[in-house]
């Protein structure tokens, strides 16, 4: 009896918290870094994996095509390295850090929609070998990026 009461009150308080939250829908993961062009980076030693964020995929619409760079190609922070196509629009993807492309997610050629359904996991786009680890300092952490997205969405 006491256990059920405890469960019910916890459920109720959980619901109250959910309702009180603002409707900012997109997912932002804590352990990643973010660029203001809405790409995310996961750093692992001197390797980095990146993709586009949940906010980006939501604003793009259904992705029907991903243009991947060649292996071995250099990428520079802030410069375009590929593109995605959605709703008859091709949008450049910019590199959040500089380095050399060591792996691309070939699965996206057959299944570009993974960018929408799993932007931080199965929808990863490329992996690079970092050329300048210091560049990561210029990126936003999850809190800053969340705020950045809210400000952008508030513009219209």
């Amino acid at each position, binding site marked *: 009896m006491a256990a059920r009461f405890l469960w019910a009150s916890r459920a109720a308080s959980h619901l109250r918290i959910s309702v009180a939250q603002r409707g900012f829908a997109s997912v932002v993961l804590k352990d990643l870094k973010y660029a203001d062009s809405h790409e995310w980076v996961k750093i692992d030693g001197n390797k980095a994996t990146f993709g586009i964020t949940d906010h980006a995929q939501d604003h793009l619409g259904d992705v029907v095509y991903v243009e991947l760079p060649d292996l071995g190609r250099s990428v520079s922070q802030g410069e375009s390295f590929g593109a995605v196509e959605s709703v*008859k629009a091709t949008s450049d993807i910019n590199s959040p850090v500089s380095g050399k492309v060591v792996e691309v997610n070939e699965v996206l050629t057959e299944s570009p929609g993974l960018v929408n359904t799993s932007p931080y996991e199965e929808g990863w786009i490329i992996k690079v070998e970092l050329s300048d680890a210091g560049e990561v300092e210029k990126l936003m952490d999850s809190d800053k990026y969340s705020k950045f997205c809210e400000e952008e969405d508030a513009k219209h």
Partner: protein
Amino acid sequence: MDDLQKMRSPRTLEVWKLGTVNYLKSLKVEDKLVSDRKANRIPDTLLSLQHPPSYTLGKRRTDHNLLIPEADLKGLGAELHYTQRGGDITFHGPHQAILYPIISLRSIGIGARNYVETLERSMIEFASVYRVKARAGHKGETGVWVGDRKIGAIGVRISSGITSHGLAFNIDPDLKYFEHIVPCGIADKEVTSLRRETDTMLLHSEEMMMLCGRKILHSFWTTRRRSIKTNSPSGLTRFNPV
């Protein structure tokens, strides 16, 4: 400029009325304007023009949707161009209104989907002026339709948040040119024009295109003060704030 000043200053759209422009030439103009817009050297700009007969492909290079050999295009008086825009194969020609907005989506805070929907809405509103009931495409069929017939096409490129390419609205082009392609990669659907869909007398092309351009402006900036400046070969003309 501090934030308050930014909010108060009217959003400007500079309109360039270019007449008929060769497709490659228009690409060069767009590239330059995108670069200038990115560097904030120019305000948001709208190119209003027509093309001589031209078939164009998007980034995915879907040339299997060109139904005749490329060599035959010359005989039709048409060119073929590959571009970086989204979308499939399409045709541009005289009496088709082309509008290329070179605008900063980042400064408005919208993304590709929202932008494309705005372009669709503009064409739908424009068609309604002539009592033509158009609609946005179903999923995967971006564009503007009257029933099952396509009247407006969209193909856009977004680079560092700046748009290029844009929309093509069929006022009264020679629809026979569309027979040589699978338009936008969608088979079994017709292409139509305003001429075909309405008995209302159509204005001169230039005026039609300005009207279409105004609809776009209206769609983007309905809650803010805005002004349009147009630049035509005869000089700079300023429109009243709409």
